[in-house]
């Protein structure tokens, strides 16, 4: 079966209903285990003290903030090229989740930064691009709500998503482009290896990252189903009003 068959809302909802119980269960388990292990079961860092425990929230939230935008980018491109409504609705469904993840990353970053850097905020390349990404999320959500015709809203928000992708890329790679910022580079470079996080902190962090990823997928599946239901209800009401 082709992946494009899931562009059919009925097939998408059937798939969604099948995978959601396992997704929600795995997400709840991994988030709980990751955060409880990180908070209660890890030691203080030699230099950062107990603030190192913020890593189990900050890193997974930041990771999902950026990856949510990339997921929206792919869904938006599918909408623009193939006009599959489910992909446009999936992008719409992901935006509030990405916005909350960005907010968590910004808040925990500020709370972590104050004792470590001596400031809540700096106009550092990564911090600034992350703040702009958050504003793009808010603009994207507002644009969906502001445009009445759903296809026009999907077109406009898809273009906004393409533009915002610049800041999603910047927020991930800004520390590589400019070195004058306060924020350090990634401590867990997946592509190149050579992580700088000790095992005792790394394993609960991986569980927490996995949990946030699964939670994002579960939320997007559920929220896309919600958007499909709302769209179908509106279409039925419009048809009834026209007397068909």
């Amino acid at each position, binding site marked *: 079966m082709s992946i494009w068959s899931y562009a059919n809302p009925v097939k998408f909802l059937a798939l969604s209903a099948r995978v959601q119980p396992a997704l929600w269960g795995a997400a709840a388990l991994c988030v709980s285990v990751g955060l409880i292990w990180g908070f209660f079961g890890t030691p203080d860092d030699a230099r950062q003290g107990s603030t190192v425990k913020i890593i189990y929230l900050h890193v997974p939230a930041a990771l999902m903030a950026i990856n949510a935008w990339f997921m929206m980018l792919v869904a938006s491109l599918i909408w623009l090229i193939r006009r599959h409504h489910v992909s446009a609705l999936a992008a719409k469904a992901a935006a509030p989740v990405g916005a909350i993840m960005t907010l968590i990353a910004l808040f925990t970053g500020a709370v972590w930064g104050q004792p470590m850097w001596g400031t809540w905020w700096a106009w550092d390349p990564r911090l600034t691009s992350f703040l702009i990404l958050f504003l793009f999320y808010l603009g994207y959500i507002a644009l969906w709500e502001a445009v009445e015709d759903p296809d026009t809203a999907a077109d406009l928000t898809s273009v906004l998503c393409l533009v915002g992708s610049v800041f999603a890329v910047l927020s991930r790679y800004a520390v590589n482009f400019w070195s004058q910022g306060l924020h350090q580079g990634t401590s867990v470079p997946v592509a190149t290896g050579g992580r700088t996080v000790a095992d005792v902190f790394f394993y609960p962090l991986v569980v927490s990252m996995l949990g946030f990823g699964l939670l994002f997928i579960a939320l997007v599946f559920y929220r896309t189903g919600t958007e499909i239901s709302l769209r179908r*209800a509106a279409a039925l009401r419009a048809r009834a009003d026209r007397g068909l």
Partner: protein
Amino acid sequence: MMPELGKYAVEVVSAYGVSLLLLAALVGLTLYRGKYARAALRTAEREVKTDS
């Protein structure tokens, strides 16, 4: 049971408290809106059936 957080207790606890609150609000609002949408669809489908 509570780990010794030392002088950074306020920072660590507030980071966890606010983040968990935001996640709970996100999940709660998602489920609430989902219930509303599915109920609205059921009502619309019933009305269409009744009309026809």
